């Protein structure tokens, strides 16, 4: 499989802007030196607690946030270096599905307007062809074309999410960042939308960066899973491997928190102490050491690098060789 997306040492730091009479605060290191690659048509599941930088990473890749440092290569082109028309051209390849289907559609624009807009901006097809494409896309996401002249408020959350997916598909992107696409939906609707996404991926070979805090959802959709903590990857492994044999202590703690219906397989729950430290003032050494049950002296002083420890498995932990 060919590499579609390569992220190199990507960082995004937010600085509270100092005004005329205010001093700038310490930067929030939302994403701090993340590197990974994603093959064409594959799904990378990105999992982590709230505030660990998952969404920021996704948005920095799409240039919704300007990255502070690092590079994003998509299809052999350095996206971080593009601007103007070249960036516009490149946006065709990468789209996003948002978490909140109530906020991601403009309440004043009809379904057809929303789906047609990407085609208009990129001057694809004639007006008649665009109309046909809108109907086609609505059909693909399982909505009938009578929806086209309605407004978002006339639909349920799941239906709106389908409309959002249709909009993301309009440009035939190679990469879609799905930022918690089902966490705002009812469980029964979640599975419908997940199946829709899985079908689209199979039929169209779209690569997904699938962001979620739901480990079951991630397991269901991902080829590879990356676990994020405080703006960094702590472990990245093929999905089956990660769920069978979590290596990083944080991954182990996360997985032990998943409810296990079979009592025989129920292992001991690892309960972490404390909260995620503030990303304005991350602890020295391994960012996880204050909460890690296995932390040793070395963890307090030295930041562990993400190293390959087995075929396709990388872990950032001093204790794992």
């Amino acid at each position, binding site marked *: 499989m060919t590499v579609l997306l390569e992220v190199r040492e990507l960082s995004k730091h937010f600085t509270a802007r100092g*005004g*005329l009479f205010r001093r700038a605060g310490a930067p929030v290191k939302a994403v701090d030196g993340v590197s990974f690659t994603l093959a064409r048509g594959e799904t990378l599941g990105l999992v982590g607690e709230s505030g660990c930088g998952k969404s920021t990473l996704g*948005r920095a890749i*799409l240039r*919704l946030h300007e990255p502070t440092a690092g590079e994003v290569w998509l299809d052999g082109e350095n996206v971080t270096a593009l601007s103007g028309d070249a*960036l*516009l051209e490149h*946006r*065709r390849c*990468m*789209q*996003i599905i*948002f*978490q*909140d289907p109530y*906020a*991601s*559609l*403009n*309440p*004043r*624009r009809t379904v057809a307007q929303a789906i047609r*807009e*990407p085609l208009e*901006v*990129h001057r694809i097809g004639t007006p008649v062809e665009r109309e046909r494409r809108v109907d086609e896309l609505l059909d693909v996401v*399982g*909505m*009938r074309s*009578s*929806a086209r*002249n*309605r*407004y978002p*408020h*006339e*639909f*349920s959350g799941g*239906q709106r999410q389908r409309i*959002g997916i249709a*909009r993301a598909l309009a*440009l035939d992107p190679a990469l879609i960042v799905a930022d918690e696409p089902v966490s705002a939906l009812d469980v029964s609707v979640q599975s*419908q939308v997940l199946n829709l996404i899985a079908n689209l991926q199979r039929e169209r070979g779209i690569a997904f960066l699938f962001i979620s805090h739901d480990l079951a959802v991630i397991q269901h959709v991902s080829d590879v899973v990356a676990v994020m903590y405080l703006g960094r990857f702590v472990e990245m492994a093929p999905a089956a491997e990660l769920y069978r044999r979590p290596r990083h202590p944080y991954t182990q703690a996360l997985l032990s928190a998943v409810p296990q219906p079979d009592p025989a397989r129920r292992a001991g729950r690892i309960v972490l102490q404390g909260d995620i430290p503030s990303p304005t003032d991350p602890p020295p050494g391994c960012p996880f050491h204050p909460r890690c049950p296995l932390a040793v002296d070395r963890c307090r002083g030295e930041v562990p690098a993400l190293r390959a420890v087995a075929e396709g498995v990388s872990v950032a932990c001093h204790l794992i060789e």
Partner: protein
Amino acid sequence: MTARAEPAAQIAIAPHESLLGQAARRFVRHRLAMLGLAAILVIAVYAVVAPFLLQSPYKTDLRAIDKPPSAEHILGTDRSGRDVMARMSTGIRTSLIVGFGAVAIYLVIGTLIGLVGGFFGGALDQVLGRLTDTVLAIPTLLLIIVFVSVIGPSLISVIAVIGLLGWPQAARIVRGQILALREAEFISAARVVGLGNRRILGAHLLPNIIGPLTVVATFGVANAILLEAGLSFLGLGVQAPEPSLGNMILEARDGVVLKSLPWIWLPPGILISVTVLAVNFVGDGLRDALDPRSTRRL
């Protein structure tokens, strides 16, 4: 073809209705607003039609001075023998022109400044924000008086002055709305698709603030009408012999008129109150209709 079940497509059974349609329905149900709207319509018709039916508001009749209401002069005549009813119709027309004209001017200025400041933020927003604060801090009436006495009182100068000074409130409201809206996910979605700033502002942000803007505009019209009446009363607005509700009431400063000729000053006073009240009722109704969350039941 008969109806057939389409599980994934069995959606949106509720009758199709745009947001505007819903708002219109809520507005129609708002009793005070409908009353206000009816009053405004009657007043507007009066302002437009009366000059054709009544005698000229400038025609003096020295044999019919200070006449009380009669069949010939429905609201009587003033100190120069001019028909009060006819003068009032021209006066209210002036009021409405000033009200809508001034608001149109400051809505454009305010929207522009609010949009630009709220959307681009940064130093530009700081500068525009301080400019807005500065204009707000100026005592409007005083500045208007200075302004008008420099450029000379007339209908145009009153419109221009109210228009050029009234925008800060509109700018603030627009800026606040834009600040909240620009972080909305549908704006991020527009960016990912590749939309430029101009299209995001015009096609995505502006349509979402039309509601609050309409409300600001309506209350603004009421205020501008009052302000014009006040200026004309002070002799700084529309000048005699051109009638305006303000300079008609001005005649009541003469004790004789005030005590024994009430038909000269009472009708314009009542008309201006009714107009402003009606416009405000419509504003209330619009606000409730366009933002259902803010509805206060009466």
